[in-house]
């Protein structure tokens, strides 16, 4: 996490999965520097009027009425529509691009070639299907599509690498300049070979997870409008400031000349953290056409080029001693993040103590769209591999897998101290109680008939600390209105509502008494909404800005009340003396004392108002039909903490969402590439399967509030352990291990078949 935050702050948006996986919470983040201003704190728990309550999101009505304008919805005067031409080939040399017919089509205002047939390397080649070749802007979207069809490209198709295995095979063609496979990295601690020799039981197996695409409902893209040398870009992004810097850098114009706006955005899940090439193309088209241009990707392009969760493979040997203490974990791992992109993940998953461990990892490069950060990068993969191995070890020991976890899960470094970020030892029994673990049968449902029932569990960890780079501004106006401004963005998590909650709580006003303004680079810097840093960054910094503003108001009001400013409190819409609440005035009367000069106070992120490190567990109860291979998840139980809960309602939604996305990863989602051409077989939403209403089990969430810690991010944690818990439940049901995701009917039938012909257990 520390490493990741550094990356974010450095403005480097090339996030690579795996570099973001944090060590166990104890090893995290040196304490931030001492605060500049007076010490700041959250109000005492008993005094909180909004924080921790179930607050409805402020933009709910606009969204439910279809009035919220997303980037995709905005229409600017005189706006043109842009479209891209992507390579139909996963690997090809571009031998010629003829734009002339497209340029002549009525209604076409700009055409750009994005590859150069004479160019070197990636400039003259397509390295994956959808790799951008050319772009057009026209008066209607239909004409833009016609124009794209008129562009003639001469391709020389080259042999493509569709799978990690193909890339790693000895006779693979040399596709990538630096080789098809990365150097092997090595992580190790202790003597793995010796430890394995000492183990009472050893499990050996190969485990794998598929490529998952983000499938944000709003596709990537933006609207670019020039006014002279100044560019305004409405972008569907998780990072307005990152997008601004990326666009300015690519166009080689000053960052001050670019303004990025994201009022509403329709999902990103990590894929919209980096600035997007298509927005740069959009800006170039707009410049060329001298008109605003909207360029939004279509669904197929979204699947192909906007990132994914890389695949993961692990050949594992793991050992446990006769007393149920884990002794060693040895893994040779690989995976593919597509063209030139990494696929790192860290095993064993760091919440279990394996005294000796070793991981040798290689990235395999394939002719597919490069990966991007995807909600808890590396974690669901590592969690699946580790938790399934744990259950297999428990079976060898004939021990309850829950008991094995209790004996080996991390706890506080100092046993006399409670570590609020390492609560698994408490949460596993809580979850077990809720799911009815005592009724769980040993592996293999003994019931007759084709429907088998089973239970499984898994744990998770995440950092979620705030970013020290965060800044915020709070204004109190003479008419009593309050403006809370911060250059963050609401990606569906409820950030806009969070900002208002913090401001209103601080001013002692109702939510309607403050206005939250976000999603604009004209507002103070806040980090991209990635790594679950937003709630900690934004709420801590906004609290400081608001307290600074409120203290200025206290200073104005104090003489009128004949007290020191420090004796005042803002409560129930009044400024009043703490010890004599009847002595005071209404908020509006107080603000009138400002005359014509509003208060404007800034805040910089400070320590103490937020924390880092979360723990959580999930349990699954499933039914598997061993005749059809179809798995139905009946129930998920989740126990999760996230420090201080800021808004209970939206926090719960976040957990529902993570679990459901985890179910997709467990059961349905799979980016399928044709093994010969490396073209995607299912770049749509009918064959790229996402969970739907009828697939949703009963979900039982226990959110553990830690009101004294300050908030910690919650976006990532709930997605991590769902697939692992479901996989363990499936094995518990059918008595056979399925060592790969997704747990599709064919994968389950295949595993059952292998069991009949020799066994996997």
């Amino acid at each position, binding site marked *: 996490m520390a490493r990741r935050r550094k990356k974010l702050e450095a403005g480097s948006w090339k996030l690579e999965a795996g570099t973001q996986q944090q060590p166990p919470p104890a090893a995290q983040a040196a304490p931030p520097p001492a605060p500049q201003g007076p010490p700041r704190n959250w109000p005492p728990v008993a005094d909180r009027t909004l924080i921790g309550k179930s607050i409805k999101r402020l933009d709910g009505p606009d969204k439910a009425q279809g009035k919220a304008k*997303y980037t995709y*919805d905005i229409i600017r005067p005189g706006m043109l529509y842009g479209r891209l031409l992507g390579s139909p080939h996963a690997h090809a040399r571009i031998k010629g691009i003829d734009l002339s017919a497209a340029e002549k089509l009525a209604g076409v205002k700009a055409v750009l070639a994005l590859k150069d047939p004479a160019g070197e390397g990636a400039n003259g080649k397509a390295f994956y299907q959808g790799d951008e070749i050319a772009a057009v802007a026209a008066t209607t979207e239909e004409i833009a599509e016609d124009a794209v069809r008129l562009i003639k490209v001469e391709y020389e198709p080259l042999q493509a690498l569709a799978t990690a295995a193909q890339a790693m095979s000895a006779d693979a063609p040399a596709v990538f300049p630096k080789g098809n496979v990365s150097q092997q990295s090595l992580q190790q601690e202790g003597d793995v070979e010796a430890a394995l020799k000492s183990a009472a039981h050893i499990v050996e197996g190969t485990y794998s997870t598929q490529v998952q695409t983000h499938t944000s409902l709003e596709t990537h893209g933006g609207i670019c409008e020039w006014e002279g040398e100044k560019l305004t870009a409405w972008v569907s992004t998780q990072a307005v400031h990152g997008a601004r810097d990326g666009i300015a850098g690519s166009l080689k114009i000053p960052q001050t000349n670019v303004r990025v706006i994201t009022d509403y955005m329709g999902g990103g899940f990590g894929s919209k953290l980096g600035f997007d090439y298509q927005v740069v193309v959009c800006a170039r088209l707009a410049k060329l056409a001298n008109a605003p241009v909207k360029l939004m990707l279509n669904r197929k392009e979204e699947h192909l080029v906007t990132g994914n969760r890389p695949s993961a493979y692990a050949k594992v040997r793991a050992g446990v001693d006769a007393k149920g203490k884990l002794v060693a974990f040895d893994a040779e791992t690989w995976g593919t993040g597509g063209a030139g992109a990494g696929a790192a993940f860290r095993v064993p998953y760091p919440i279990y103590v394996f005294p000796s461990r070793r991981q040798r990892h290689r990235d395999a490069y394939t002719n597919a769209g490069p990966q991007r950060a995807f909600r808890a990068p590396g974690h669901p993969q590592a969690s699946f591999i580790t938790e399934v191995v744990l259950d297999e070890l428990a079976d060898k020991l004939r021990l309850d897998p829950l008991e094995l976890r209790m004996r080996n899960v991390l706890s506080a470094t100092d046993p006399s101290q409670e570590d609020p970020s390492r609560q698994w030892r408490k949460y596993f029994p809580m979850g077990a109680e809720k799911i009815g673990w005592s009724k769980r049968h040993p592996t293999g449902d003994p019931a007759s008939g084709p429907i088998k029932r089973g239970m499984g569990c898994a744990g998770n960890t995440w950092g979620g600390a705030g970013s020290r780079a965060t800044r915020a501004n709070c204004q109190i106006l003479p008419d009593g209105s309050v403006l809370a401004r911060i250059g963050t963005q609401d990606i569906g998590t409820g950030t806009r509502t969070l900002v208002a909650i913090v401001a209103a709580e601080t001013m002692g006003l109702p939510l309607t008494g403050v206005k939250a303004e976000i999603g604009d680079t004209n507002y103070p810097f806040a980090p991209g909404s990635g790594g679950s840093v937003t709630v900690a960054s934004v709420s801590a910094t906004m609290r400081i800005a608001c307290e600074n503003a409120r203290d200025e108001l206290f200073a104005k009001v104090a003489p009128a009340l004949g007290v020191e400013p420090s004796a005042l409190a803002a409560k129930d819409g009044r400024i009043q003396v703490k010890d004599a609440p009847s002595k005071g005035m209404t908020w509006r009367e107080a603000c009138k004392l400002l005359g014509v000069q509003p208060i404007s106070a800034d805040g910089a992120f400070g320590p103490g108002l937020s924390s880092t490190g979360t723990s959580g567990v999930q349990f699954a109860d499933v039914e598997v039909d061993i005749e059809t291979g179809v798995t139905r998840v009946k129930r998920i139980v989740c126990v999760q903490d996230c420090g201080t809960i800021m808004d209970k309602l939206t926090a719960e939604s976040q957990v529902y969402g993570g679990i459901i996305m985890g179910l997709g990863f467990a059961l349905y989602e799979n980016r399928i590439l044709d093994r010969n051409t490396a073209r995607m077989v299912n770049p749509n939403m009918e064959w790229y399967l996402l969970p739907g209403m009828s697939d949703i089990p009963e979900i039982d969430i226990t959110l553990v509030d830690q009101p004294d810690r300050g908030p910690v991010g919650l976006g990532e944690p709930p997605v991590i352990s769902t697939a692992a818990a479901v996989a363990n439940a499936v094995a518990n049901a059918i008595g056979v291990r399925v060592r790969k995701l997704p747990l599709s009917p064919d994968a389950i039938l295949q595993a059952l078949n292998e069991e009949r012909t020799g066994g996997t257990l």
Partner: protein
Amino acid sequence: MAPKKKDEPGFSRRSFLKTVGAGGVAAGVLGPASTAEGQNVKAIGPAASPIQLNVNGKFHRLEVEPRVTLLDALRTRLNITGPKRVCDRGSCGACTVILDGRTVYSCSMLAIEAQGKVIRTAEGLTEGTVLHSVQRAFCDHDGLMCGFCTPGFVTAAVALLEKNPKPTRQEARKALDGNICRCGTYPRVLEAALNPKSAAGVKRG
């Protein structure tokens, strides 16, 4: 998940319509194309033709090429952007509108086919500034996160409750199975649809 649903018992005609796109069915079954062998049918297009659409109680005159979908006509010609374009091929429900009382995927119907129909979108459900009871329930239950799928879910829920004000959990799930949410709001969307207050504000008809 739409394709999977066909294999399940209880697969409904409605979900079939949603799966293949109401456009195709309307043209094949209900449309004026019943004229023998297409004779005497006036050819339209390929140039833009004037059409009239009745959306949210207002008549709009516009010119569109026959290939323009109802969704694109609403969004890019009329600036009615509640219906979203997500999959653009009838599998996600984000573009759901209510057309003559039943839900259709507006991405899978041509604008010219929608003439003479009563079209309602999420925007049209609000009366003045007063939220429709279903919209209110979505907000109360937090049945929305990023909100991109929300107008589609809201219209699907309204259409359900107009036909069946007291749906069972199973009926409500089935009626909302044609819509996809990526944030994972399903449990709360379902609670919103099942909240009796939702149906209380629904006009039967």
